[in-house]
């Protein structure tokens, strides 16, 4: 659905996106993570043909965005960090205006979408009277009007209160579930990405520092905390018995595939060692993200 090849964007001397290669298959909820200024919005801008790439290729729905923008974006909906509307016009009129930039849209279709996003009864009010949450719904409505196959969401939770964020999260999940949309979600709200996405890419200073499945990330990065009076002796024993693949930081052990914490406990107690505690340490995506950014910064500094 989305294919970026060696994408690069320079603003003057500043490199905003560097050699970004990314593939988002149809039906996936893909997370684009990164702090402010990491290059997420620039990458999205290039996907939508709003920002011209310095080099590289962007393909959306099988069409090159630079050369065949109209075809590429025909089945794409997008929501931005701060959805902007014609505040002096009604929500309905805004939907009419925006949808006509894609294709003629019937009032029935607008009605359907207004009902779906829960704006019924307020669609004829001027947008300046809308709350943040209602504006977010209107943004969603305009994105859904062209019956998109791909939805690009650039920081959709920005500016919303916790209740609004939770509602937005549920809506995104519903969109994926009910409509089977491919969703690209850019966010710095890590919990949001963790809960919604199947795969993620992490950007830092315009460079992709990670791409993989969220589950993989969790599995790969999950470690077991072992609390015992003699950690070195315990890990030596566990290695000899082939139960662990490694030990770090004087408290974490990495279990071999298929080995449970109960087996480790049995082995240690059986050898007469005291076990004060043993539990799974599941690293959050946030920890993971921060460790990646830290690693990327260190590498960048050392290089």
């Amino acid at each position, binding site marked *: 659905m989305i294919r970026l090849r060696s994408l690069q964007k320079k603003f003057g001397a500043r490199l905003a996106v560097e050699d970004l290669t990314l593939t988002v298959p149809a039906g996936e909820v893909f997370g684009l993570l990164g702090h402010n200024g990491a290059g997420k919005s620039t990458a999205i801008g290039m996907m939508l043909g709003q920002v011209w790439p310095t080099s590289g290729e962007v393909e959306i729905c099988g069409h090159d965005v630079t050369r065949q*923008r*109209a075809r590429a974006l025909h089945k794409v909906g997008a929501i931005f960090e701060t959805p902007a509307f014609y505040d002096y016009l009604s929500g309905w009129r805004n939907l009419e205006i925006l949808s006509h930039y894609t294709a003629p849209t019937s009032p029935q279709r607008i009605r359907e979408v207004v009902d779906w996003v829960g704006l019924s009864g307020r669609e004829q009010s001027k947008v300046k009277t809308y709350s943040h949450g209602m504006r977010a719904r209107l943004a969603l409505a305009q994105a859904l009007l062209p019956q998109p196959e791909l939805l690009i969401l650039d920081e959709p939770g920005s500016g919303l209160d916790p209740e609004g964020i939770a509602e937005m999260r549920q809506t995104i999940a519903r969109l994926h579930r009910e409509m089977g949309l491919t969703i690209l979600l850019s966010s710095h709200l890590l919990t949001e990405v963790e809960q919604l996405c199947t795969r993620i890419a992490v950007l830092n200073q315009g460079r992709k520092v990670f791409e993989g499945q969220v589950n993989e990330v969790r599995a790969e990065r999950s470690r077991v905390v072992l609390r015992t009076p003699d950690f070195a002796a315990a890990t030596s024993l566990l290695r000899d018995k082939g139960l662990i693949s490694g030990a770090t930081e004087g408290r974490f052990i990495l279990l071999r595939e298929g080995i449970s914490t109960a087996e480790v406990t049995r082995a240690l107690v059986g050898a007469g060692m005291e076990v004060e505690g043993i539990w799974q340490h599941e690293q959050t995506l946030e920890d993971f993200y921060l460790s990646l950014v830290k690693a990327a910064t260190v590498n960048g500094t050392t290089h």
Partner: protein
Amino acid sequence: MFLAQLKNELWKLFGKKRTYIGFGAFILAQTAMLLAFKYTRWQSDFERLLGSNGYLASEFISALTVAVVMLMPQIILLMPLYTSLVGGDLVAKEYEDGTLRMILARPISRSRLLLVKWIAGVIFAAVLVVALGFIALGFARVLFPWKGMFFFAPGMAFSVLPAGEGLARFMLAHVFLAVNASVILSVAFMFSCFNMKPAAATILALSYMSVNVVLEGIPFFDRYEHWFITHHFRCWLYVFQNPIPWAQILQSEIVLIAACATAFVIGCTAFQVRDIKS
């Protein structure tokens, strides 16, 4: 589809309160000038001008004569201001508000978007000019009778016209005024397509017009007057001449239409290569 998009642009344009500032300003200026003409020495001076040319003031101080007298300063001062205000907003304001990014997330091409916006702007310019004419004539008719027309403009020969022909010429003059307004709007629109604030686009357009007026007024530049866009704006006044200098009007209109097209193409090119970011 194109018409639907144009209709939407007009909704956007005419839905904004600031679009109507010009109309309001015309009404106020018209009222003030009309009262000044009626109740100050302005009218008696004008009557003397008519008398010195052998015409009876009572026959030619009419709604049509006064309407044109009222129009002249407004065409020079207010029309450029309000057309460039709207022209400067057309693209730059949408960029500033963030709505341009919403639009350009959709498959419409940039050139088509600009074309629709520009046409909407030209329609606004035409509506503004027509409103100006109606207001001028309507207000003048309230205080002055419907009689023959006396026309006098600096640097031009005066002319007298019967009421019917005067009205026809008055209406024709507005066609050329609409072209003038479209040129000013197009210049502001062109600047608006660059990466700048709406106010900057408006000010640049007004500055461009002012520089034209100033240079055109310097005797040294007399031989280059055809190079100044404002020189060609005088077409609407030629309409009241006897006979109407059609060749001169045609030449000037071609220059003005070419100026509109050039401004549009420059704006379009600048907009095409721009990165649209939040």
